[in-house]
Structure formats: C-alpha cells, structure tokens
C-alpha cells in the first residue's frame, strides 16, 4: 500500500506539472532518437558496404595481379596445370565507351569473363542474373550482355548492335541479353575474355586472375610466384575503405552519443527540479518515517517510468529519422569513398535493444545524482537558503574537480596516442570538466554584471542578475547543459570552418594548371603529338602530365600519382620535412612522397622505406617527404613521371594539366584544344574553377549529415533550457505574485524575466566559447588526425564564436518567452498562500 501511495503521489505531481513530464520525456526521446537514427543509418551503410565488397569478390579468396601493366595470359595457363590452383578464372576489366544513338557516349566498365570457369570461382550472382544465355558469349564472337538498366534507359533490345570504343579500337557488338546490376552497383558490359581482348586491343593479356584458395594453397602459390606478379587477398582494396568508413561511422556515432549526453543533462536537470520542487514533501515523507532506500526507490522508479516512456517514443522517432540520415550517410560515403551506388541494407535489430538500454540506463543514471542528494539531505533544514549555500559550495568543489578531469583527459590522449575511441573519451572528459566550471563561472559573471545591470535598469536589473545566482542550484545545471550543447555546435562549426579553409588552401596549392584534360580510353594513341600541339598554342605556357595508377603492394593498395610538373611545380605542400621542396625531393632516384593519411596509417616518416611492386619485382623506395592531401582514398604516393615509367613500364597518362598565359582566355584555349583533338563531344576538359567548385560542393554535402546532428543536439539543448526555465518560473511564482501585488506591471515583470533568461544564455554562450574552441582543437588535431590522418590549420573564426554566443542567448531568450510570460501573468492570489 505504501508503494502504491508513493506512486500515486508521484503521479499526481506530474499530473499537476504535465509540461515538466512532457519535456523530460521529449528530451529522452530526442536523445534516443538521434542515437538510434545514427546507429541504424550507420549499420545499414556498413552492411551495404560489406555487401558491395563481397559482391565484388563473392567466392573469390585471392587475386593474382601484375606488378605493372597487363598480365600475360600465359600466367593463367601455367596456373591451370597445377591442381592446387585449378579454381582460378581470368578477368579483364577496362573502361570503354558505348556509342549510342544520337551521338551519345556512355562510359562503362567492360568485364571479360571465362563463362565456364567463372561460376565455380567467383559465383557472381549479380552478373549472372538476367535473361542472357552467357554461353553464347563464348560461342558467338563480338557479343555482349548489357545491364538491364542501361538497356531500358537507352531503348536497346536484344539483337541490337552498339559500337564499343576503347582507345583507337572501335567495334560493333551485338547485345544478346541483359543482366542485373552487380550488388556493387557498377554497370558492367559483360563479354567473353577473347572478345574483351579484341575490343580493347590487348590480345594475350589479362587484367588479373581470380582464385579460390585455402591458406595452404595461397602460401604455396606465393612461394612459387613469378616476380612480376603479386598475390593479394580479395577485397584488400576495400580494407582501406573499410578503415575510413569505420572512422566516418565512429565520428557519427560519437555525435549521436553526444546528443544522448546532452539529453542526460536535460534529464538530470528535470529530475533535480522535480525533487527541489517537492523538497518540502520529501522532507515530510522522511520525517514521518520513509527510509532513504524507499525514497531513493520512489525517485528512481519515477525516472525509470519516464525513461521507458521517453525511450519508446525515441525508438519510434529514431526509426523515422534513420531513413533521412541513411540517405545522407550513403551519399557521403558514395561521394567520398566508393564512387559507386550503395543500396541500403536492413540494419541489425540489436541496435534497437542497445538504444533502449542506453535510453533507460542514461535516464536512471542521470536521476541517480539528484536522488542520492535528496536522500542525504538533512530533513530538518528544508530552507531554500541552505539549499543554495550547498549549491555554491558544490559549485566550488566542481570547479576544483575540473582540473584533475582535464589532466585525466590529457593523460588518456597521451597514453593512447592513436586510439580513436580513447580520443572520444578524452573529449567527453573535457566536456564534463567544462560543465563543472560553468556554475562557478555563472556566479562570478553575475557578480561582475550586477553593478552595471543595476546602473542600467535599477532595482529590476539587480533582481534579474541576482535571480540567476540565488537560484544557482537550478540555473547552474541549466546553464551548463546549454553551454555544452552550444560548445558542441560551435566546435563542429569551427572544425568544419577550419577544414574548409584548409581544403580551399590545399585546392589552390594542388591545382596549379588552368585546365585539366582527362585522358579517357579513346585518347591513348597519338597523344604525345597532340600534347606537343597544345604546348605550341599561343595561350599555353606549359603542360603538366599525370598518370594515376592503382597498385597493390605488400602493405596495401595505393594510388600512385606519377607527375611531370608544369611551370608551377608539383603543387604539393610538404608537411615534412619542412626545409625542402617536393621538386628537390622527387628529383632523387627511387624517391617518393606520401600523403599524410597514408603516412599516418602505415607509420611512415621521412627517410623510411616503402616497398612497391615494380616491373622487376618488389622494390624499396625512399619516403622522401610527406605531403598534405585531402583525397579521401587516403593512400596516395607521388613519384616523378620519368621514374614511374622506368620502374613500372606504364607509358599511359591519366590527366593533362594545361597552364595558360596570364592574359589568355580559357574559353578560347579550350576551343583550340578541342579542335586539336577533333572530338568535340568526348573530350573532358575541366577548368580549375569547376574542380574547385565541385570539390567544395562535395565537401559541403559531406557535412550535411553533421549539420542535421548539430541541429538535433541544439533542439535537445533548447528543450533543456526550456524545461529549466519553466521549472524556475514555477518555483518563483509566489515571488512574481508579490511583485505584481506591489505594482510591477506585467510588461515590467516579463522584461525582467526575459532579461534573466538572456543572462543565462549569455553566461552559457561565454562559457561555450572557450569550451567550443577547445573541443574544436581536439576535433581538428586529434579526431581528424586519428580518423583520417589529415592535418589541418586550426582557425578560430571570430564570426563562428560570436554566432555561438548569439545562439546561446537567442536559444535562452526564445525558450524564456513562454516561462517569462507565464511568470508575468502569475496569479497574484499566490502571495496569500504558503509554499
């Protein structure tokens, strides 16, 4: 019966204060929804990525690749003579153009298969599904299978002929059927190996050999390998992408957890307020014999009920939220890493369980502190002044505890100097330390502001300022919660601004040419003569050449950027060593410079060695320097083009940079270059402005998901301050009633209340500024470094800080309007009543 009575008392309290209950439930629901939404989106994207990776290899366990150039077909026949490696199939992959009706050209990946061997080795269900009889590829020359989507989009039917362009090779092929898109999302033009060799003009050569091997067979094959080939595990390329996407997902998860942390502050402040409001009842209950344990049980029971309600609502909201977030996450991953369409996958249902546990657990943990405080209070001293004196003492203790908390954060960062999760724990500790300093900071600032406020608005100003300090037990928590939310929003803003500024700087450094010509498959032949003609154009002062090749080395998969610099050099900003230029370093034989992400991932430093597969086998190159690189593949190596050609036997080019005279017209130059190539439609020429613009568009799109999360964290914080102000207003109703009785007008009281909430916002904003800057520094120099290996300049944009402070004031004022209005309209009859 006692429990039922206590439960009834709790229920009736919340019946009288429904908004308090609603705000607490809403805070938990939003925190859980953000966390669940992010985790569902992350998990779905992760599964999509894994499905994509496994679809690309399926049953294949290993790949045999040439160290440079194409792979002689003889390697395949040699393999087939040994039973241990019989499960192998040749593969040709090459980009080609499809010439469609109306002059349209469509770039597509040509895939040459051995239709007999392929199913037993790779089992590519994606490419085999469809209406085509793949055996006809083998028996009928120059036949292909088109992706269903392409056939539909361009009204191509079975039996139609299309022209395939590859370099100087042009062939009419017959479409014998269609296939589904592979699960990796790539549209592929399927054909037989022999037809593929004919189409791209490489008879007797393959791109690679796919194998299905056990560990013993793989080891034996490695030991017997031709030095011009390399055996790598299937999906090795995806390992790096996997690392990067994991880092990306970790960052998102951390943001989701942050929303939950802000939500916890909200719960803490709400539960604290409900206890403070019932302080007299709590004291009476204790006086008539309620034990501390029973009181604790009652308060935690309330929190549990609120937690369950909020969590259930949060789970529903989170499911809806995840759909929108997933779209943003997939698009970002697609933009940054895969460049292939990812399809959403059904996330694990365990995430719902985890979110529910976190939601309910966070609520109970947040309620634990005020509940313990309530049970420990002296039941004979329920006075408000005693409570506030305790709050001031506690504020001083918290401030003292902030320093060791910061030291602990520093120690974690120093000890786990590469760990990402440890870095997030350190960030969490910095946030906690910041929150600990806020109440004392609030007190100090208000003391400082009291005299100016009194001069400005007389006794009303003084009352507004003192109202903040004299209710420190409530305002301290509310201000800390708002400060944390604003600091978080500010820090992410500062990090993005720093990143963007560094990216713009990097683009300006890297893109030295005025125009870039992509050397597609059709431009290989006679390219050098065209380049000579370009150099002779009056608008042109020079050209740079670049070959980009993907290579699989013992330490992983790298992009090799072989460059012959133009008049403005390599366009590389070295971060180490700092006393030489890239030109000087790359002049040396067997020297490469590596990107920061790659150097960070592999622990490379200047003068260390990096093994690369060359045409004479694996050779060690000196890492001469490390350069700043925001390419998201994260594994770039730059080498001089001449050296590359000597070591890798690859004479091709990928991109030509055209450097124009200062007074040259880019449009005229573009037209002249097109005329030289005599292929108006196909030649892809991009201006520096276009590349710069598109890079920034992708950058901004990348951070859209972050913006959404910032907004959600802001809403949680807004609810927190609203809840705090409503509770404060309720508590001071009688004081407002007295002031109204004394002749203070509704407007005067409204303005005074609003000024007080503005002061709370200002305090939170001023506290958030240094905390936000510190968090931004950690995001820039620790989190980004550990996640992606990027270094960037840390820029504290005054505008971003000012915007943060303004946001805190605006949020507080906005949240304060209703409580201020309610307070100003307080029933004056309340002055007649006891508490």
């Amino acid at each position, binding site marked *: 019966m006692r429990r039922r009575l206590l439960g009834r008392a709790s229920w009736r309290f919340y019946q009288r204060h429904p908004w308090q209950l609603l705000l607490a439930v809403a805070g938990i629901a939003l925190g859980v929804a953000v966390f669940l939404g992010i985790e569902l989106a992350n998990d779905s994207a992760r599964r999509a990525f894994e499905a994509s990776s496994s679809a690309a290899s399926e049953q294949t366990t290993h790949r045999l690749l040439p160290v440079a150039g194409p792979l002689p077909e003889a390697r395949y026949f040699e393999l087939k003579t040994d039973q241990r490696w019989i499960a192998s199939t040749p593969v040709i992959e090459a980009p080609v153009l499809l010439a469609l009706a109306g002059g349209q050209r469509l770039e597509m990946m040509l895939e040459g298969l051995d239709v007999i061997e392929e199913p037993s080795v790779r089992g590519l269900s994606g490419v085999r599904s469809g209406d085509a009889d793949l055996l006809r590829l083998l028996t009928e020359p120059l036949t292909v299978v088109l992706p269903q989507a392409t056939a539909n989009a361009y009204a191509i039917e079975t039996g139609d002929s299309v022209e395939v362009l590859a370099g100087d090779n042009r062939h009419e092929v017959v479409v014998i059927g269609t296939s589904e898109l592979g699960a990796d999302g790539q549209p592929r033009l399927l054909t037989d190996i022999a037809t593929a060799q004919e189409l791209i003009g490489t008879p007797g050569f393959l791109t690679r050999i796919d194998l299905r091997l056990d560990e013993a067979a793989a080891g034996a094959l490695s030991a017997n390998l031709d030095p011009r080939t390399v055996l790598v595990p299937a999906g090795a390329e995806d390992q790096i992408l996997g690392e990067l996407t994991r880092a990306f997902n970790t960052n998102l998860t951390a943001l989701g957890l942050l929303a939950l942390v802000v939500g916890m502050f909200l719960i803490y402040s709400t539960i604290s307020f409900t206890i403070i409001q019932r302080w007299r009842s709590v004291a009476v209950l204790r006086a008539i014999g309620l034990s501390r344990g029973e009181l604790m049980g009652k308060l935690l029971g309330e929190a549990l009920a609120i937690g369950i309600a909020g969590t259930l609502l949060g789970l529903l909201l989170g499911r809806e939220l995840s759909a929108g977030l997933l779209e943003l996450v997939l698009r970002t991953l697609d933009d940054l890493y895969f460049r292939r369409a990812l399809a959403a996958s059904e996330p694990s249902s365990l995430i719902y369980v985890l979110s529910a546990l976190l939601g309910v657990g966070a609520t109970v943990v947040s309620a634990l502190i005020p509940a313990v405080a309530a049970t420990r209070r002296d039941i004979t001293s329920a006075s408000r002044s005693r409570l506030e004196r305790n709050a001031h003492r506690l504020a001083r203790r918290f401030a003292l505890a902030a320093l060791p908390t910061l030291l602990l954060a520093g120690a974690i960062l120093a000890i786990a100097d590469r760990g990402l999760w440890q870095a997030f724990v350190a960030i969490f500790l910095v946030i906690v330390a910041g929150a600990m300093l806020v109440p004392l900071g609030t007190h100090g600032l208000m003391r400082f502001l009291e005299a100016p406020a009194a001069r400005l608005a007389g006794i009303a100003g003084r009352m507004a300022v003192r109202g903040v300090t004299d209710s420190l037990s409530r305002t301290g928590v509310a201000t800390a919660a708002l400060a944390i939310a604003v600091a978080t929003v500010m820090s992410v803003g500062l990090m993005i601004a720093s990143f963007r500024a560094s990216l713009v700087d990097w683009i300006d450094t890297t893109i030295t040419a005025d125009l870039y010509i992509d050397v597609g498959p059709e431009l290989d032949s006679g390219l050098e003569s065209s380049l000579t003609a370009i150099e002779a154009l009056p608008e042109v002062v020079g050209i740079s050449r670049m070959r980009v090749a993907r290579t699989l080395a013992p330490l992983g998969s790298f992009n090799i950027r072989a460059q012959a610099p133009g008049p403005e050099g390599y366009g590389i900003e070295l971060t180490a060593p700092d006393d030489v230029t890239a030109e000087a370093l790359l002049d040396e034989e067997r020297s490469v410079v590596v990107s920061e992400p790659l150097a960070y991932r592999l622990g490379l430093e200047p003068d260390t060695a990096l093994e690369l597969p060359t045409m004479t086998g694996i050779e060690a190159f000196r890492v001469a320097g490390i350069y700043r690189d925001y390419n998201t593949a994260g594994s770039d190596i730059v080498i001089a083009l001449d050296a590359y050609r000597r070591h890798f036997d690859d004479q091709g080019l990928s991109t030509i940079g055209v450097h124009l005279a200062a007074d040259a017209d880019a449009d005229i130059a573009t037209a002249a270059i097109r005329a030289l190539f005599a292929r108006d439609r196909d030649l892809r020429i991009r201006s520096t402005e276009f590349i710069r613009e598109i890079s920034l568009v992708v950058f901004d799109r990348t951070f859209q998901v972050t913006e959404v999360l910032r907004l959600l964290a802001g809403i949680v914080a807004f609810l927190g301050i609203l809840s705090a102000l409503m509770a404060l207003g309720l508590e001071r109703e009688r004081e407002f009633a007295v002031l109204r009785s004394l*002749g203070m007008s509704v407007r005067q009281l409204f303005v005074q209340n609003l000024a007080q909430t503005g002061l709370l916002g200002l305090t939170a904003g001023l506290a958030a500024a240094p905390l936000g800057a510190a968090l931004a520094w950690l995001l820039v120099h620790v989190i980004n470094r550990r996640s992606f290996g990027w270094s960037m300049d840390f820029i504290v944009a005054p505008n971003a800080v000012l915007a943060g402070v303004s946001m805190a004031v605006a949020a507080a004022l906005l949240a304060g309007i209703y409580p201020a209005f309610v307070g100003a309209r307080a029933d*004056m009859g309340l002055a007649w009543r006891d*508490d």
Partner: protein
Amino acid sequence: MAMTDGQPIEIRSVCKAYGSQIVLDHASADLAPGEFVAVIGRSGSGKSTLLKLVGGLISPDSGSIRHGAHDLATMSESELTTFRRRELGFVFQFFNLVPTLSVRENVLLPLALNQVPQGAALRRVDDLLGRLGLASCADRLPDELSGGEQQRVAIARALAHEPNLVITDEPTGNLDADTAEEVLDLLIESCRDHNATLIVATHSHDAAARADRIVRIADGQIEPAA
C-alpha cells in the same frame, strides 16, 4: 505618491464564487479614510477574498468596489497596476520578501516602481528602517532575518511609498505572541502616522481588539462583529 488623499472605500453588493462555492454573496461594507478595520471569520469564510477584491488583485463576479472616485471594475489592467503601485501597501502572513534583494532594496522596491528619485528614495528608506529598528540589518538578505524582523521589513515595504490603504492578511499569524504584538503596534502606529486606512484579516482576537471597527464574514455577508 498616492493619487488620492484619504478616500473612502465602498463595497457594494459584491458577489464572488470559486466554481460552485459562493464566497461572497451580495456583500457590502464601507471603510472610512484612516480607519483601522479588522476582518474576522472562520477559515475559508472569504476574508482573503475580500482583501484581494479590495486590493484589485481579483475582480468580483458582480457588484462594485470604489476607492473614492475610482471604480475598480471599470479600470484596465494597467490602470489597476498603477493604482496598486501608488495607493496600496500589502503585508502578507508569510512576509513574501523578495529573496534576492537585501532589506534596504526590498523597501526601496515600491519607491523604484513609483520612479521616486534615487536620493529621496534612499533617504525615505533609511528613515523608515531606522524607525522600525531595522537599520542594522539593512544590507542583509531576508533569509538571514528572524520572522519578526522579516515582517517588520514587510511593513516598511508596505508603507515606503505612503499608500492610502494597507492591506494585511494575518500579519502576525506566523509570529510568537510577543513579536506579534510588537509588529502589530508598529503597523498600527505607522498607518496612523500616514493616515492610511488599514484592513487586517485575522484570527487573533487580540489583534482584532486593537481595531477601530471589527467586521465578520459569515455566509457570504460582511457584518459588524458583535
């Protein structure tokens, strides 16, 4: 500060109900300027309601309350606010001092609301505090004072702007007998000094006995006490 000088108060056929509970039923009464009237009655009889009606804090359902030429029923919200600010002083049972203001600032508050120049206001406050024996605790906060001291501050605040009418609800209800008498003496003397009308709702026969006139509220009516 008062707009009027010693105006009579007329309560005519006032009705007030809270839901189905009728508190005042066509109640009427007159208060002369400078008069000290004690209002007695059982708990819940409507004493506080009468005080709130006279103070313009709530409106009657019907009937009229006039302070001289001012009919409270016809006054707008802002006129009522100004009226209270200038004409009325309140002393509550639970003191109701503003906890964030010192004793001096609490007493200064009605003067500040009436825009009395700061120098004159401070002189007035210090004079009042001296007369009420509060000079030594002028800079202390309310929760550092005893109950009797807090009620004296409340009296000082009620009288600071020299109102025509002081309304008090159980001003001694929260004090011990000696302190209660001391506080009541102060209240009566101060009102007499300023020729202010004083209405006291009380359960205390001793307090009521000090009044010029005692009225009782019973069955919704205001009657002279026997």
